[in-house]
């Protein structure tokens, strides 16, 4: 504990809980401590990740160059057609624009973009500086929209106006302006919108296929492989299926209020949650189509028949290994805890950047005794937890990966940089494979962390031998 005490800010003590220590309480949903090496991002980042996969819109970042540079094609949100979203557009504000205002520049940039690309819509992202110099984004967007005859949507994503979650909200508000505008003719009574899936590595295609087999039409992908025209008619769908609650839950609520579209909260990660998500949707449509449940059961049965035997192979190797999870939204952590359990592994650390009190309560309920639950953590805390719990694999994002590797711990990117689809039944298999490939890698034999923790390793022959013995993978 001495190590831990030295790395934890006093102010953060109630944002860390060890299950079994005391009655569960969690400080969360608060601003990060100034000076902490927080893993969190900003409002702009939140908006950008949600809207970015809409592939036939132009996404123009109104601000200095950095905000556009850092978000240029960094998320593998695949498109089956147009790929406008993979280009980087910026007004590259200069000092004179900051002094005299950037509205004229924004106007010209938009006109040029729309003339060249004839996009279905344009999203204009506000950045910190725009919030300070007071450019009237709404007015410029309205003017261009009028002149060019396409929706031009301001996204109020000034970086300092909250955290990533506020960015999700701003993105939802921008998207909502598109809704209710398109024709809903011909939409099946058995129809859904897929919210909160960003088609990383092609995941939304897997989910759409499941629904197709169940006899359900997918109206709009929100936003993975998304199209503006689909979003404009999304209000015609019978149900919103919402994954990754943080990102698009606000949109589901707006749609419910305005169009009366009900929503279901689902997760496509792991076998249990995937199956339950399909069953929940089937139950919703049961009255309209009594045969739907049979089709769903058949689908799940078929998938599991392929999946289980192969999962068992991985489980045999991974049984008893320990995992740590630190992700953006807590919702994903629930599914991960269950998925690891299915592999016979134990989750010893579960945390998120922006979880809510209810999220952490749920995490508390599904995790084992002794599990550390943490909100808005930082590298020093995370590495001390990883060492203390002697984990075999860490699940996180880009900033966490090198920390795990430096410690000699396996890693799985469950964020923007995932290369294989992790959703769906096939995704569970990919996940098992990825976990297996990292946990069982022979490289850890050369990283004698277990016996040399806290000591300075010297690269002598004896140390290599000792290291190999101590990690008989």
């Amino acid at each position, binding site marked *: 504990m001495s190590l831990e005490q030295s790395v*934890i*800010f006093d102010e953060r003590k109630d944002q860390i809980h060890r299950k079994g220590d005391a009655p569960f309480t969690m400080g969360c949903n608060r*601003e990060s*401590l*100034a*000076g*902490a*090496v*927080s*893993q969190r*991002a*900003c409002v702009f*980042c939140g908006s950008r990740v949600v809207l970015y996969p809409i592939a036939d819109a132009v996404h*123009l970042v109104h601000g*200095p*160059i*950095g905000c*556009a*540079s*850092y*978000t*240029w094609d*960094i998320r593998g949100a695949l498109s089956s057609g147009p790929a406008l979203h993979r*280009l*980087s*557009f*910026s*007004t*590259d504000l*200069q000092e004179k624009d*900051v002094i005299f205002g950037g509205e004229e*520049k924004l*106007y*010209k*940039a938009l006109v*040029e*973009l729309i003339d*060249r690309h004839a996009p279905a819509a344009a999203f204009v992202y506000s*950045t*910190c500086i725009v919030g*300070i*110099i007071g450019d009237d984004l709404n007015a410029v967007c309205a003017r261009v929209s009028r002149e060019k005859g396409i929706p031009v949507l301001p996204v109020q994503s000034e*970086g*300092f106006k909250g*955290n990533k979650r506020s960015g999700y909200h701003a993105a939802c508000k921008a998207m909502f302006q598109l809704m209710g505008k398109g024709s809903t003719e011909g939409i099946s009574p058995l129809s859904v919108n897929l919210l909160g899936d960003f088609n990383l590595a092609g995941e939304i295609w897997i989910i759409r296929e499941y629904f197709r087999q169940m006899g359900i039409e997918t109206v709009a992908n929100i936003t993975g492989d998304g199209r503006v025209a689909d979003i404009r008619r999304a209000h015609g769908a019978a149900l919103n299926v919402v994954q990754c609650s943080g990102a698009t839950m606000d949109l589901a609520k707006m749609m419910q209020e305005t169009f009366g579209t009900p929503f279901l909260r689902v997760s496509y990660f792991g076998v249990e949650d995937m199956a339950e998500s399909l069953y929940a949707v089937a139950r919703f449509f049961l009255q309209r189509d009594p045969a739907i449940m049979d089709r769903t059961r058949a689908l799940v049965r078929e998938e599991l028949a392929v999946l289980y035997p192969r999962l068992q192979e991985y489980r045999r190797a991974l049984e008893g290994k320990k995992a740590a999870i630190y992700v953006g939204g807590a919702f994903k952590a629930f599914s991960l805890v269950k998925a690891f359990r299915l592999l016979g592994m134990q989750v010893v650390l579960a945390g998120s950047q922006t979880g809510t009190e209810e999220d952490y309560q749920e995490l508390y309920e599904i995790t084992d005794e002794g599990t550390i639950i943490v909100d808005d953590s930082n*590298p*020093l805390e995370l*590495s001390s937890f990883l060492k203390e719990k002697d984990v075999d694999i860490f699940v996180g994002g*880009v*900033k966490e*990966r*090198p*920390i795990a*590797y*430096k*410690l000699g711990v396996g890693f799985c990117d469950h964020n923007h940089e995932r290369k294989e689809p992790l959703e769906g039944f096939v995704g569970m298999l990919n996940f098992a494979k990825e976990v297996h490939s990292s946990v069982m890698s022979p490289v850890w034999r*050369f990283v004698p*962390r277990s016996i*040399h923790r806290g000591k300075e*390793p010297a690269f002598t022959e004896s140390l290599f031998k000792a290291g190999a013995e101590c990690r008989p993978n």
Partner: protein
Amino acid sequence: MLLRHTPKEIAERSALTVNPAKTCQPIGAMYAALGIHGCLPHSHGSQGCCAYHRSTLSRHYKEPVMAATSSFTEGSSVFGGQANLVQAIDNIFSVYNPEVIAIHTTCLSETIGDDIPQIAKKALADGKIPEGKHVIHVNTPSYVGSHVTGFAGMTKSMVDYFAVSTGTKCNQVNIIPGYVEPSDMEEIRRIVEMLGVQAVLFPDTSRVLNSPQTGRHEMFPKGGVTVEALKSTGDSMATIALGRLASGPAARALDTKCKVPCEILDLPIGLRKTDVFIDTLRRIAGVSVPESLNVERGQLLDIVTDMHHCFYGKTVGLVGDPDQLISLTEFLVSIDMRPIHVLTGTPGKEFENRIREITRDVPRSVNVRAGGDMFLFHQWVKNDPVDLMMGNTYLKYIARDEDIPFIRFGFPILDRVGHSYFPTVGYRGGMRLLEKILDTLLERQDRDAPEERFELVM
């Protein structure tokens, strides 16, 4: 074709940047600050800035990158960031305990007008800066310059805050390596040591961002120039600055502040620029060049001799940072290649003048642009295709669409490894560049050769 939208016809654009060839000042300042031993860079702005810089540097180096942020909120942007920064300084020293906090500003804190030295003074008065610890800063509004000028600014701040002249000269030379890879800094140090010269190299990110796997995560890795060494730069005999844009300001500041004379050179990329660096060092330090270094030079020359027919007349397109491109263009011209498109995202007319002069005798029309973007570069390439392109990872879209061989060079490189371990400066670095160029060109020749012309010996 991801870039199918790029039209061949070039029209001047005044408002829109498409696919940037630069990024903003703060990330350069953060990178430079990581080259001070025991330093925690601090981003005075919103959380996102810090997260983006750390992520980008992490992707480029595949290393943990530590930096703190003032975590601006709506309140701080109305009332100023003083409270956040004072609290941050307090928190950082009490938990992370660095030797130095190196603060850089952002567009947000610049525009609301936070006065960093005044805030640091308040932190000191409030007893938030422990004895013997340091807080330094640089102003890096994102709407000025580029990542390169941010690096230059933080490097100059090291001089402004630390360099002192005690009146007694010491027998050492300051070397400012410029915005180069940790491997390049290591190589420059190796060359200096081969000459037997005592030197202070700053900043120095080697062993910080190319550190070995030890089974430990070090908040402050072993590398980096120490504060002690930075202080002593004021007593050095001379300063050699490599790269006019990235290192010039710090060298001139040392001259002004401590009367340390400086030589501002181009980056030692390629034969001639390395010659100039070594000759300058030899002259200043009064040493002679060891035979071992002559051998390296001869080996580089030997590769050029052996393979000069492969370089002859090959056209090249280059995107990158000004200091790198000036030296690289010179190197390529010197081996008979023809750089015909040379573009940097960093603004500054000087760059265009230098490249024009270097390519004066290239028997082709040459496109040069400072403050350009990848979109323009792509248009140039469409109008006048090249045999080879060199630049950062983002060039891969153009390379794929136009089917042009491509070598990763510069920042950022997000899809390959090697740059943090193997240098491109010095004679050895030159050899590595030639190896890459030859591999890439000959690989293509092999791929495209008809069966009867497919050759074993090349």
